[in-house]
């Protein structure tokens, strides 16, 4: 940009984002399963400075999770098979939500279940005990690591529609469907969520992956396959968000391998209005805060006064559109 243009000072950059009427201070959220219930990381991270906290998937009953080994590092990524270890909705509403209500940030409760009925029960239970900063729900229909973790839902477009329609009447808060990348095409899922009344979609969950110990000849992860996350999958995530963007006008929350503000920018440009940081919280528990600050600096440098000008600003020429020539 020309040097003569007005220079925007950092404090002037408007990072706020509104999703279906709910305002978030900034678009850098933390992803489900990668930030616990907030308390664990509070020593290393100013919780109130996070755009929103998406809590670990909660199910009706507590779940111990899978047998070890649950994690394996891979090139620029990791495989996990936690198995939706969680405290169950009872403890969640009694302990976790009230704890999180003390912070000046928004909470999005992620729900996992094995039947439409269970999804509904969990959501209703949380809704009954909603705290002041509970912004809404993210519905995990995409966990690859447990038999009943929703991936059977997540790869079936009719089921996703049915589930969304069942949940919609139960809350006026945000209803966000979290989609899996493990499908041939994510577009019909995005479209279905829109038609069924979701407020937004988030993507991607982890990509199915596997690793083998060449000495024992056993899978490294106890459940044989696990979910791949981290910077390695970022290009896949961006492609999926791009595909979803063309299929729906719903707000999209981008997830996958975000390690810095430049990565986040790629998602915004493609059309995500917010992003979630996952695996990188494990490396830097304050990653979301750092990225927020970096983002402010980048937008300032680009002389951009509002994130809104970035969202969906992708420049695709017609020439580019015609894949191959």
């Amino acid at each position, binding site marked *: 940009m020309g040097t003569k243009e007005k220079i925007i000072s950092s404090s002037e950059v408007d990072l706020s984002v509104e999703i279906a009427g709910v305002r978030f201070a900034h678009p850098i959220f933390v992803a489900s399963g990668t930030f616990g219930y907030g308390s664990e990381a509070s020593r290393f991270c100013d919780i109130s400075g996070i755009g929103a906290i998406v809590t670990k998937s909660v199910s009706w009953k507590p779940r111990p999770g899978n047998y*070890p080994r649950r994690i394996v590092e891979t090139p620029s990524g990791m495989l996990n098979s936690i198995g939706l270890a969680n405290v169950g909705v009872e403890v969640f509403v009694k302990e976790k939500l009230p704890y999180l209500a003390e912070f000046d940030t928004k909470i999005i409760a992620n729900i996992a279940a094995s039947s439409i009925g269970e999804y509904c029960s969990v959501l209703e239970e949380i809704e009954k005990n909603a705290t002041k900063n509970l912004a809404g729900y993210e519905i995990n229909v995409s966990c690859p690591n447990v038999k009943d973790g929703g991936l059977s839902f997540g790869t079936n477009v009719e089921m996703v529609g049915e589930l969304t329609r069942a949940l919609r009447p139960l809350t006026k808060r945000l209803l966000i469907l979290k989609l899996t990348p493990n499908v041939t095409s994510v577009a019909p899922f995005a479209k279905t969520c829109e038609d069924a009344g979701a407020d937004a979609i988030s993507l991607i969950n982890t990509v199915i992956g596997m690793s083998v110990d060449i000495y024992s000849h056993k899978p490294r992860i106890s459940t044989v396959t696990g979910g791949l996350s981290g910077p390695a999958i970022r290009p896949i995530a961006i492609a999926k968000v791009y595909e979803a963007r063309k299929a729906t006008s719903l707000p999209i929350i981008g997830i996958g391998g975000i390690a810095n503000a430049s990565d986040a920018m790629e998602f915004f440009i493609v059309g995500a209005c917010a992003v979630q940081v996952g695996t990188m919280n494990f490396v830097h528990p304050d990653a979301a805060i750092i990225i927020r600050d970096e983002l402010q600096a980048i937008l300032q440098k680009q002389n951009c006064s509002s994130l809104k000008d970035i969202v969906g600003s992708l420049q695709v020429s017609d020439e580019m559109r015609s894949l191959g020539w």
Partner: protein
Amino acid sequence: MLAPIIEKRTITKDLFVLRIEAPAISSITKPGQFVNILPRTNSTNPLLRRPFSVYQCGDNWIEIIVQIHGSGTQELAYANKGELIDILGPLGMPWKVQSNNYSTAILVVGGVGVASMPLLTKFFHGLHTPFATYYGARTASLFADEYLQNISYATDDGSKGFQGNVIDLLRNDLLKEKHLSPKLFVCGPTPMMRAAVTLAEEFQIPCEVSLETEMACGVGICQGCPVVTTEKEFSTSGKKFHLVCMHGPSFEREQIIF
């Protein structure tokens, strides 16, 4: 936190000590806690931090002792004095030294398990608690005993001390009732820790073991480091597991199945 390496010492070909200036950590670390270190900033391979016990603490520094194992520890081996490394800690729970179910502390050490023993030694020394150290290794040259005291050695090849494994050496002494109301504090390879637990069961004495599992976060947010528990209702992770990073790394033998 970025902290400078202020000293590097080589112990053996693939074992070295890094002294890191980190007053915020050294001032609050208790015996048995660990730090989580990023082998390389500005690269996503290796991606995750690596856990290391705090080996020694000074006024404004901590030390870690590192055994070269794979890519991350190799990376640390390349690090030089003056360079900054990214370090998080102290993490985990300390050794349960406060329990009053013992009067003599027995430090049982195998290989790089030595890492969590110097602070424990310092602690018992400071309190004048009677303690003894049983330290096993393959051969004499592998001992890293600069910070240990009251040591009985065992080597596989007999090059130093007792020839045989350290648990047999300890059993002999326990049979001789050499130690008054002992508790074992054990850190070493898993088979050795299992043997120590069996020994403690045999003698019906308390025994605490310090576990190693792969960790993604080290702070309790990934649930990646479970160990099966004997307890029914304990942790926020549900009923069946403890998290080694948050509830450990050391556990009383009755707490866990490993």
